[in-house]
């Protein structure tokens, strides 16, 4: 393990724990921004520059702002919550710990962890663009259609209900 990886991992984990446990929702959204930025740094460390910057653009830029807007739109005149966690929180925590135990056990016992990284792994924007326009052109069109449908759907869902 290298020092940059440890720093990035510690920052990302601390920020995501903060995002899940803080009381103030705006603070949660801001911690989420830090966690997303840490993940983008991890992507950059893995030589995936395009994905790292796409992560910053989409998550830090768009999704986090969207969450802040939703927070501001849904708390007008609301009393502060007495408890943060739902009634069955013990079961939820137990499930999460069990899932982590299973994943860690599977990782530890897998033959795949001896694998060495490829000597040069390059994904230039040109290569990605070429692949998107040739081999992956159909998924690209489908995702464009999906985003359009989601845009229209989100607007329709969030529109004010008409008085009958």
């Amino acid at each position, binding site marked *: 393990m290298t020092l940059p990886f440890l720093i990035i991992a510690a920052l990302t984990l601390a920020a995501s724990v903060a995002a899940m446990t803080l009381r103030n929702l705006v603070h949660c959204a801001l911690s989420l921004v830090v966690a997303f930025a840490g*993940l983008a740094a991890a992507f950059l460390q893995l030589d*995936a520059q395009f994905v790292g910057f796409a992560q910053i653009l989409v998550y830090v830029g768009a999704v986090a702002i969207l969450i802040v807007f939703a927070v501001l739109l849904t708390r007008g005149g609301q009393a502060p919550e007495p408890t943060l966690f739902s009634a069955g929180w013990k079961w939820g925590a137990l499930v999460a710990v069990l899932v982590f135990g299973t994943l860690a056990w599977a990782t530890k016992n897998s033959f795949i962890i001896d694998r060495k990284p490829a000597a040069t792994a390059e994904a230039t924007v040109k290569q990605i663009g070429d692949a998107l326009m040739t081999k992956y052109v159909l998924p690209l069109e489908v995702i464009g259609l*999906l985003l359009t449908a989601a845009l229209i759907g989100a607007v329709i869902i969030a529109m004010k209900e008409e008085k009958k």
Partner: protein
Amino acid sequence: MTPLAGYLILSAMLFCIGLAGALTRRNAIIVLIGIELMLNAANLNFIAFWRFSEHPEALTGIMFVIFSIGVAAAEAAVGLALIIAIYRHYKTANVDEVNSLKG
């Protein structure tokens, strides 16, 4: 370079933090944040496996993550719109109180 196991464990921890948040918090927005964290943990796995694969020039992991980010953006937009609609109807964003399908 950090071994593959380091990235896999980091991703598993992120996934479980997100899962714990999604299962235990009462506010619907935090539940959605937890789901986003879980999606991001999966993306980290894709990139780690791509970097440690024998044929990184095939770009499969990169493509998967790009499309996954697109789908996650659509999911976040629709999810937050649903939360706003539920808040307008029930006057709460607490998932424990939203327990009837027929409003």
